[in-house]
């Protein structure tokens, strides 16, 4: 099974600053999807950004962008101009492109605190 590792259990950032959350994964596949989900205190899981492995260009969604390093199996999330509403648990997830059941593998999460 694929494994996803988030080595930073907790991170903090000053409001309006930039923060980067790390994610690495282990796979022998060449084609797959990667995702970042946000879980605020409401507990709802919200999709933040997604990346296809075969695309070289890093995905961007407004203030959120990724640094996808396929050879290094790294998929970090950069949050620019951090806002108080960005405070949440962030989960990195991997999904095989070819596997049965669209099975996702999640990291253990990084808790982000935004300091006013």
């Amino acid at each position, binding site marked *: 099974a694929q494994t996803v590792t988030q080595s930073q259990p907790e991170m903090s950032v000053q409001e309006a600053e930039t923060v980067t959350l790390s994610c690495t994964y282990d796979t022998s596949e060449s084609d797959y*999807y990667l995702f970042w989900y946000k879980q605020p205190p409401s507990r709802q899981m919200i999709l933040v950004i997604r990346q296809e492995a075969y695309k070289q260009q890093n995905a961007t969604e407004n203030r959120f962008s990724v640094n996808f390093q396929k050879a290094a199996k790294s998929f970090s999330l950069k949050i620019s101009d951090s806002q108080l509403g960005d405070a949440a648990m962030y989960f990195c997830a991997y999904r095989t492109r070819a596997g049965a*059941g669209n099975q996702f593998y999640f990291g253990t999460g990084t808790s982000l605190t935004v300091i006013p």
Partner: protein
Amino acid sequence: DAGITQSPRHKVTETGTPVTLRCHQTENHRYMYWYRQDPGHGLRLIHYSYGVKDTDKGEVSDGYSVSRSKTEDFLLTLESATSSQTSVYFCAIGGGPYNEQFFGPGTRLTVL
């Protein structure tokens, strides 16, 4: 937002009692999933379904069973609840151009 509801949203039960959690979707998605979320473990897949009456086990399926008699409903049953099954349970459906998963609001289950 994807139309996914879970019921109940909170439940407290006693060890040894049966518990059924319901996930209902209005998106007509083929794939549905049950996860549990525990501190230090992220989300772990319990069971999933790839169609009516078609289900398969996930990473942590022991002590759980599922059923899917209609496209829109996916039930998770704890036949005899144990304290180790105290957790937050999430239902998800698959879909979208990247086949990302959309999640329900979660059910907090406490087994005393």
